[in-house]
């Protein structure tokens, strides 16, 4: 009884899928770490942005020694700020991050110094290690500068000088970034999480079907069946790639409900990750899942034990996690060769999707071609090494 190669591959595929899905504990760890991690980071990020926004919206200013500067109080109130007295031990509180606002300190002799024409010193007290206070410090600085400018203009107006002489030009900022581009400041790490999910989805199954099979002593009897090596390897690779793809799908779609939990309205408006983006992510990721599976299997078939294979596959894991960093070190922006490097190409494309940019056919085809070549090479290497692996 000999059988068609396709049916043999399907038999192997089905068995490997069942086998992998029964390894509940590993599967659970992969699911938790790779599928939940992304949305969790997104949530943490949204909580941070929301608290920053909340602070900005509150329009509060804490002042110590307010009674010495009535003009300042008047100015703050005209800018619709609520003026509050700072707690007595604000320095300690700021240093220990228990107080989240910078404090304006007005000296006792403020008004008399001003009347004498001296420039009194107003301190803005903050702690650069206290993130929240630090983020408010710039705002308070601007507020105080506004007050100073108003005072100066009034003084000049009294003396009959036109305000245009003091301010010969006006500066206005215009931000070219779209809302989505701005959001990539926050969401730039998402592609990395998705890449890791795909990698860890493939890792265990790839090692188990090759080095694991050798370690158990089940590879030799397996090869004593009248099935071609190519169909055995194709079945195994198909199963590993499918698991990796499954994790990729779960991980991409996990951002959809994660998005509903976003607390910050601004972030929600900026982070547009809908069905369209999820599908584009998958188009980019699925070929990579197939290629990574083949490469990991090719590395692992040369190893006698699961442990040895884990050690050797570290090179692949490290490569996948470090390659996307090229964009970080390379300030000159995207280069055409980026699309030829696995992981880096996918990272680049996913970042573009998040920025809301269109992907051209060529941009998609180059990484796809690389993945197809890698898969073919990996599968061929495994098929070639299979018999030698069984008897050693």
């Amino acid at each position: 009884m000999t059988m068609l190669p396709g049916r043999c591959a399907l038999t192997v595929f089905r068995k490997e899928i069942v086998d992998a899905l029964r390894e509940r504990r590993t599967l659970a760890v992969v699911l938790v770490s790779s599928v939940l991690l992304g949305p969790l980071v997104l949530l943490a990020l949204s909580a941070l942005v929301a608290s920053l926004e909340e602070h900005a919206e509150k329009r509060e200013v804490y002042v110590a020694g307010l009674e010495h500067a009535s003009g300042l109080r008047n100015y703050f109130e005209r800018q619709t700020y609520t003026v509050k007295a700072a707690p007595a031990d604000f320095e300690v509180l700021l240093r220990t991050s228990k107080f989240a606002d910078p404090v304006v300190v007005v000296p006792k002799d403020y008004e008399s110094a001003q009347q004498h024409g001296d420039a009194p010193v107003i301190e803005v007290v903050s702690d650069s290690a206290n993130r929240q206070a630090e983020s408010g410090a710039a705002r308070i600085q601007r507020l105080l500068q506004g007050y100073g400018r108003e005072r100066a203009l009034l003084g000049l107006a009294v003396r009959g000088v036109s305000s245009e002489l003091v301010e010969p030009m006006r500066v206005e900022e215009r931000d070219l970034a779209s809302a989505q581009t701005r959001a990539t400041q926050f969401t730039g790490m998402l592609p990395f999480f998705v890449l890791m999910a795909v990698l860890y989805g493939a890792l265990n199954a790839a090692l188990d079907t090759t080095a694991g099979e050798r370690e158990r002593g089940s590879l030799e009897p397996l090869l004593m069946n009248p099935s071609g090596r190519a169909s055995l390897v194709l079945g195994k690779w198909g199963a590993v790639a499918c698991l990796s793809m499954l994790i990729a799908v779960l991980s991409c779609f996990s951002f959809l409900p994660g998005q509903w939990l976003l607390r910050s309205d601004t972030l929600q408006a900026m982070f547009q990750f809908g069905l369209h983006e999820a599908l584009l992510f998958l188009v980019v990721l699925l070929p990579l899942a197939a290629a990574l599976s083949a490469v990991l299997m090719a590395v692992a078939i040369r190893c006698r034990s699961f442990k040895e294979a884990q050690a050797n596959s570290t090179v692949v894991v490290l490569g996948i996690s470090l390659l996307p960093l090229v964009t970080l070190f390379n300030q000159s922006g995207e280069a055409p060769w980026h699309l030829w490097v696995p992981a880096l190409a996918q990272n680049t494309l996913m970042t573009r999707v998040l920025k809301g940019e269109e992907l051209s056919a060529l941009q998609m085809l180059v990484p796809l071609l690389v993945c197809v070549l890698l898969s073919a090479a990996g599968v061929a290497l495994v098929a070639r090494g299979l018999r030698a692996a069984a008897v050693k």
Partner: protein
Amino acid sequence: MIAIEHVARQFVVPRSRPTLFASKRSSERVVRAVQDVSFEAPDAHITGLLGPNGAGKTTTLRMLAALISPDAGRLAVDGIDVVSRPREALARMGVLSDARGLYPRLSARENIVYYGALQGMPRDAAHARAEHLAQMLDMEPLLERRTEGFSQGERMKTALARALVHDPANIVLDEPTNGLDVIATRALRDTLRWLRTPAGGGKCIVFSTHIMQEVERLCDSVVVVSHGRTVAQGTVSDLLEQTGEQDLEEAFVKLAFTERHALADAGGTKGEAA
């Protein structure tokens, strides 16, 4: 029927510890695992492959299972050449190899049916066969259990059932009693005897061992392999007669190790050949 004619196989292995002064040529060592093994195992007959450790039994059986290709000689299963038509030959053989790893997360039944499917059996037939084999090997309670945590005997039974799932005409077993207790060994012997009978299918059974008792109790004929060569073959009484001994163990030592001394004497010429 299995026929093996003058097979030979050598391996080139790197020296485990190359010394500082070793020349490049000697940094590789040639191991001649099998030099000249020949025997014929007819149907309805149990043929024992008897030899000391390292005699080349496992290498010979691996060549028979098309895992290693021979450097010289011919191997045939029911007239099918193993080297040129390995898949057809494998379909006519059930091999219980030295390595008998099972899939721990699959049940015994799933392990057996998987091999049935790989042999091209329809699923129903493979399941029916698994049940039949479980009955024959007295392992019915094991069938639905995952093989993780199986004892040696339970593992062997499952592996044997897996090898026999496609009801092959030729059965090859490599040291099947390794690690089995008395009860399991006896059960295996009974099974093999039954498989030899016309009711059991009149199988051609080849099994390798280094245990005299097994050969005496089970084998219709014995092939003594030593140092990669067939040194004697025949029934147990033939071998006793040939050596003039009363006891198979004495006969075996005489056959296997006097031959080795003879080879050691010829060591000079062998070295040059390598």
